[in-house]
């Protein structure tokens, strides 16, 4: 895995070589093995390399096409590059290296922007045409790899991480109020929004073309265009088994050893089962227990799976004794406040195995494409909840019982008439009766009134017609929580330690097929991951497939009650950010939380991340 960054002056101004070197210095953790620069008049971009495929100097980037017309920098892995290479060879292309970068470059030379849809993998790419002076940047269809950009009248700047854009000094640090609105409801901004007004994230499946000072945003892959069709269950079972097997096989391609994060759940066990077929007994698997997991971990299950597939299994016990610097560094890793606390255990696990292995496979995406959440059943059973939902208003917003408040939130969400907003409300822990925006000062609240946290949901649902409500939820999850929360968490927590994580459940061939299946087949009779489990019978042990999902929740709420309570208080009351919060209100919440009252753990966690971010990045509100 790697990091890329670039600056393109839209007015023809020469770009200083040091500017791009500074950007690359900020993302060196993504690629500690090598650095390369391309500087030519008004454009300059570069690459930090983590060598995975073709470890030789032939894989150095920026890479030039044979005629030196095109120059590429690329972060990611394209797993089907060998197939594409064969196709290109038939068309007369010769190759001088074994790297996937060269294949991508020649695929672009041959097919131009139509090449992106052929790539099965994760990527963020920038290709510059020295003849036409056109720059194209593209991102993979699920948004596994990040790509941020900033554009104004003078510059187009792009990078794998926001910090590499900020260091140029060419962008402002104004907060993006739409993103802030989304952050206080979900814990992260959605879609193209970042918390910086002047910086966007390129949407998954999109590419930008910058030519003659004009910027075009185009889509090469759109999930909403997938046609959901009926399928025979037996055929689906067989197809999924074959496609998942092939996907895992593809994801093992590497010139360095590959390992697996084996949690002991269905997804990682399935990956282990298939991978062990191809990797023999050299496959390294990693399981972890934390000092804060209160003994709720799946170490035993993982060890059982590892033994069955004869992997070289590693059990780690990780302590989070230095929690404050970890929390602060994670804000820095994301460059934004990011409230999914699951980034902490992942960060700690990567820290523990750093230096032992460079590439690991992980089960992300399994829950989203196969239906691993209870809300898929909840939306199916909505009618049952409509009667009790009428009494939601009877629960006072000022109630202090966490259980009552949780019930109020759920009933309010389920009774919401607008489908898009309903599904959004089911995902968040906030509720309109107790708006999270109340933690802010009057000035900020006023600005937030112009934004809506539901825009992204409403936008996606507006293009989903003719499918069931549960199918819509599948499509929305794949375009919202998967890229914006889970994949964001995976990329930043792992790349902070120079570790490449691969997600075989998001393989193109597998997802194209599974996304076209009706939700009623994937979550049959409300059973989570019904179809996946059936497909894995006799491959993954029954004791794993039929076990209840255990896993632990990161106890951030407990930490905020106890060892982080003073820290939280100091942070939100820090003079450098005095104007952000309504101190009276937030201090009341902190005090209530310390006494075990209320339901504001997640809101306070979000406030803490926001306070750290605003202070460290000196944000203008």
């Amino acid at each position, binding site marked *: 895995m790697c990091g890329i960054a670039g600056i393109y002056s839209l007015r023809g101004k020469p770009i200083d070589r*040091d500017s791009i*070197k*500074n950007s*690359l*210095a*900020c993302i*060196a*953790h993504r690629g*500690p093995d090598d*650095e390369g620069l391309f500087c030519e008049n008004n454009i300059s971009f570069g690459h*930090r390399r983590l060598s995975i495929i073709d470890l030789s100097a032939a894989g150095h980037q920026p890479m030039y096409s044979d005629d030196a017309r095109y120059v590429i920098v690329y972060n990611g892995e394209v797993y089907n590059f060998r197939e594409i290479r064969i196709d290109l060879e038939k068309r007369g292309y010769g190759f001088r290296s074994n790297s996937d970068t060269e294949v991508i470059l020649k695929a672009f030379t041959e097919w131009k922007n139509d090449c992106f849809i052929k790539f099965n993998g994760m990527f963020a790419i920038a290709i510059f045409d020295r003849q036409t002076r056109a720059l194209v940047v593209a991102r993979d269809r699920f948004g596994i790899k990040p790509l941020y950009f900033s554009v104004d009248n003078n510059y187009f700047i792009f990078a794998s991480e926001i*910090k590499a854009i*900020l*260091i140029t*000094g060419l962008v402002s640090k104004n907060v993006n109020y739409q993103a802030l609105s989304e952050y206080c409801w979900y814990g992260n901004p959605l879609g193209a929004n970042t918390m910086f007004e002047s910086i966007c994230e390129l949407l998954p499946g999109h590419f930008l073309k910058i030519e003659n000072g004009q910027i075009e945003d185009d889509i090469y892959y759109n999930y909403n265009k997938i046609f959901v069709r009926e399928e025979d269950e037996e055929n689906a079972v067989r197809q999924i088994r074959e496609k998942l097997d092939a996907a895992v096989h593809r994801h093992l391609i590497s010139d360095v050893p590959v390992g697996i994060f084996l949690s002991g759940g269905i997804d990682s066990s399935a990956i282990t089962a298939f991978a062990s077929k191809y990797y023999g007994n050299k496959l390294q698997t990693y399981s972890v227990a934390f000092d804060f997991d209160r003994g709720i971990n799946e170490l035993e299950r993982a060890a059982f799976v590892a033994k069955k597939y004869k992997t070289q299994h590693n059990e780690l016990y990780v302590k989070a004794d*230095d929690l404050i*610097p970890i929390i*602060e*560094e994670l*804000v*820095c*890793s994301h*460059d934004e406040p990011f409230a999914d606390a699951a980034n902490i255990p992942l960060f700690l696990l990567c*820290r523990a195995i*750093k*230096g032992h292995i460079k590439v690991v496979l992980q089960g992300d995406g399994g829950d989203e494409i196969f239906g691993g959440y209870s809300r898929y059943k909840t939306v199916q059973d909505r009618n049952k909840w409509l009667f009790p939902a009428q009494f939601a208003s009877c629960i006072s917003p000022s109630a202090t019982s966490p259980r009552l408040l949780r019930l109020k939130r759920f009933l309010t969400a389920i009774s919401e008439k607008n489908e898009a907003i309903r599904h959004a409300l089911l995902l968040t822990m906030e509720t309109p009766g107790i708006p999270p925006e109340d933690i802010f000062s009057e000035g900020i609240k006023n600005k937030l009134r112009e934004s809506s946290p539901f825009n992204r949901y409403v936008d996606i649902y507006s293009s989903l017609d003719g499918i069931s409500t549960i199918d819509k939820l599948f499509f929305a999850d794949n375009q919202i929580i998967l890229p914006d929360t889970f994949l964001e968490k995976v990329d930043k927590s792992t790349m*902070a330690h*120079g570790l490449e994580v691969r997600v075989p459940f998001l393989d193109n061939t597998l997802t194209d097929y599974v996304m076209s299946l009706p939700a009623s087949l994937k979550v049959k009779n409300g059973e989570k991951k019904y179809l996946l489990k059936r497909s894995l019978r006799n491959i993954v042990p029954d004791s794993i497939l039929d076990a209840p999902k255990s896993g632990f929740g990161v106890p951030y709420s407990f930490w905020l009650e106890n060892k982080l309570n003073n820290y939280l208080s100091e942070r939100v009351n820090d003079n450098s950010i005095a104007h952000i919060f309504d101190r009276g209100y937030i201090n009341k919440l902190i005090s209530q939380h310390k006494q075990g009252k209320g339901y504001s753990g997640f809101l306070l966690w979000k406030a803490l991340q926001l306070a750290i971010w605003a202070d*460290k*990045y000196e944000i203008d509100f």
Partner: protein
Amino acid sequence: MSKRKRVLFIGSFKNSGRDGNVGGQMYACRSLIESELKDMVQWVLVDTTAQTNLKRSLINRLFYALRRIVKILYLVLFKDIDIVMAFCSSGYSFLEKGTILRIAKRLNKKTILFPRSGYIIDQIERDDRFRRKVKIIFSSCDYIISQGSFWRSFFVDKFNLPVIKVITIPNWINIDYYDSSKKKIGSPLKILFLGWIEKNKGVWEILEAIKRLGNDDFIVDFAGNGTDFEKLKLAISDENLTDKVNLHNWVYGEQKIELLAKADIFLLPSYREGLPNALLEAMASFTAVIASNVGAIPDIIQSGVNGFLIDPGDVNSLTRYLQIYIQNHCLILEHSRSALETIKEKNSINSILPEFMKLLN
């Protein structure tokens, strides 16, 4: 049960020199004799702690050296010694300990030499006589310990030594001694230089970088002494930098730990180094480092990952990296954490013991 080997260890064992200096050499030696190696070997110690960090007369040096040589000869001849191991610096220290090991080798003892100073490279390059003596000493030793891959290659290539004879063991420190529970990185940003105030330590490059950075929000502490101390003091005053730069003398013990703990960035733009303790101490104190890519430093600093590396004398890069840190406090946090992890993994007493066990067995 096999008999424990008797190891005559020539090094630095006193708690402090006369001027209160507790050096890295002392920690390295003391931590070894206090480690679990004591279950494997019987230590016979000869202390060679310098009386002071300041320069001494040749007569003074010769007097102490001769006294030590006599003592060591007696021990080697009459005290059933199996191995003689010496930690040394450059110059006279190297020649004295090298001579002792040559004698020990003649008396059929296993000999191990650990040169720990980066200056030895200059002396070898500019002084033919010194180089010839080094070659003789190296040839007569059984093992030479190098502090990193650079030194290993240098010794092997320069003196045509068998690869097997040069063992790499990086320098080590007592991590628990330093305060890594970092305070808030803040304003003003605190930048520290700790070491000899001399040209070849890069102090003038630091001053130039400070001038170029102008009014950015930082302060710099220089702590140490040396030939350029007074000149630097004058330059700070002449350039009106007294608000930005504090010049201290050598700092020891708690005072040093405190200065390291407060520092956000540590600078070491030297022209020559082995693997200096000050660098390891800074990394153990949760501090981001900008150092020159000399000696064994690139073995532990990966530029952009746990600090930044520059070429010696490259003021532009030094200024640029300082600017990056000043603008991006998050990067300081990331590099500091990564540096601390590096030290824990590679430069703690526990990480180097297995190599010594093999060597002394």
